[in-house]
């Protein structure tokens, strides 16, 4: 399971990590008569190579924010800038891993990972890269298996490998470990940190799991109502997580931060 990243064995095959800036982002859904504002005035700067966790209650617009960065959704107001240039559609510089693996059931894991390759890559280089990534996520022995022949955790690792195949300047993770069992989730979090250490790309991680955010993120952005009494979510809190990774899951600092984050999310008494 644990991918061993021997120094020098993996070429630095990612593009340079890119900074992301959300600037006055707003999004509402529904027709003009029945409009529901989901996001308002989200402005935040994410540094290259940073891991930013986006926390929030369900339905607060976490995924909408991520989808705006991927170019899968067009905001009503404001914009997303990656490396200084605005996102106008599906963006080559980003790669997404969703909550569900979303693999093509008729393809092998290898072929599914190859979907993520950038258009420009040659066939032989692409194949080598796919095999390397499958090895990285510990699935080289399952390259020829179909998604339904492997476990949920393995499918999710394949989905992660597919995102990495894109050489992303920004890696967008939409609750990628949310549907996994607790043990597999911890292993996946360690794998993500291994990958990030070897190839430090910028990561936006949407999650509803406070502990996951505390383990993985440099900073945590909490989406919520904020101070103003207006509809829609905005940045309720933006905190830097103390300590270098890997962090002790039981440290007192993190415990205090966990309590304050939970109360921001409306859970008190923990």
């Amino acid at each position, binding site marked *: 399971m644990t991918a061993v990243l021997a120094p020098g064995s993996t070429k630095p095959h990612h593009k340079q990590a890119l900074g992301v800036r959300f600037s006055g982002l707003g999004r509402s859904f529904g027709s003009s008569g029945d409009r529901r504002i989901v996001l308002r005035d989200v402005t935040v700067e994410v540094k290259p190579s940073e891991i930013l966790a986006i926390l929030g209650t369900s339905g607060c617009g976490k995924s909408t924010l991520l989808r705006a960065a991927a170019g*899968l959704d067009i905001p009503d107001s404001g914009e997303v800038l990656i490396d200084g240039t605005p996102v106008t559609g599906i963006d080559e510089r*980003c790669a997404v891993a969703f909550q569900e693996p979303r693999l*093509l059931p008729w393809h092998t894991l290898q072929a599914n990972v190859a979907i993520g390759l950038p258009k420009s890559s040659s066939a032989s280089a692409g194949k080598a890269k796919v095999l390397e990534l499958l090895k990285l996520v510990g699935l080289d022995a399952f390259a020829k298996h179909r998604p339904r022949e492997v476990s949920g955790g393995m499918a999710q690792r394949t989905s992660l490998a597919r995102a990495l195949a894109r050489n992303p300047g920004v890696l967008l993770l939409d609750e990628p470990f949310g549907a996994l069992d607790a043990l597999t989730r911890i292993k996946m979090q360690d794998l993500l940190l291994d990958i990030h250490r070897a190839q430090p790309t910028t990561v936006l991680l949407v999650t509803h799991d406070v502990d996951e955010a505390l383990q993985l993120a440099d900073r945590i952005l909490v989406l919520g109502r904020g101070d103003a009494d207006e509809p829609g979510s905005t940045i309720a809190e933006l905190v830097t997580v103390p300590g270098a990774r890997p962090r002790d899951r039981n440290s007192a600092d993190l415990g205090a931060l966990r309590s304050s984050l939970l109360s921001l999310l409306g859970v008190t008494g923990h």
Partner: protein
Amino acid sequence: MSAEYVTPISKEGLEATGFPVPAPAAKGNGGRTRLRGGRRVGVVLLGLIVPALILLAWHLSTASGYFRPSQLPSPASVLAAAVDLVQRGQLANHILISTQRVLLGFLIGSLLGVLAGALLGLSRIADILLTPTVGALRAVPSLAWVPLLVLWIGINEDSKVTLISIGAFFPVFTTLYLGLRHVDRNLVEAARAFGLNGVRLLTTVQLPAVVPALFSGLRLALAQSWLFLVAAELIASSMGLGFLLTDSQQTGRVDRIILAIILLAVIGKTTDALLGIAERWAVRRWA
């Protein structure tokens, strides 16, 4: 392959006599494969029980004189009618021309069905513009086209193949159209997120996703093709199994009528079984 067919029959024979048969699971993988092959042969054999009983009842009811030969000829006389037609060199012609008409009409109709289903299933504008029209055309009972086809195209091969094509078109069109509209949105979105669009999105995600649905549409279309063949041949033809039916009705040859019906059942079932094999392969490959 031959071992798969021979072994299980004898094994089931043993079981039928109450002879203890060793559990196949103990034999490992080879034994399991053989059992599966054996099950399939067993299923086929069980499926033949009812036809065999019908044949027996048919034979007994005619041999006992319960039915007069002019009402229901015996199995033997139907067989004799078949041999007679073969010796005259007519039966093969009837079968071949009917099969040719069905296959041509099926191919043309299902090809057009695939094209139209893909267009309306994928393009929102085409869907809005054309779906009401296609729906109305589908509501026209198929035989209503016959007078028009005869006037426009004439009484020839083309009008028959056209009628069969109409019959084959709608099942393929409908299943593909609905299949494409219900392709998992999450899969399509994920593929789009990785830069797939247009033709590549179609060939990578949307078409593979509807292959199983397409094959069930094709099987329905083939059944429809045989239905429309008989309709076309009953109305105007000088050859084919449908013609054999009308011609025998006029000459009072019940034995030939029954022969034609049996042939339609056997050939129809055979073509359906062949397509069924292709469907099973496709479902394994794409589902």
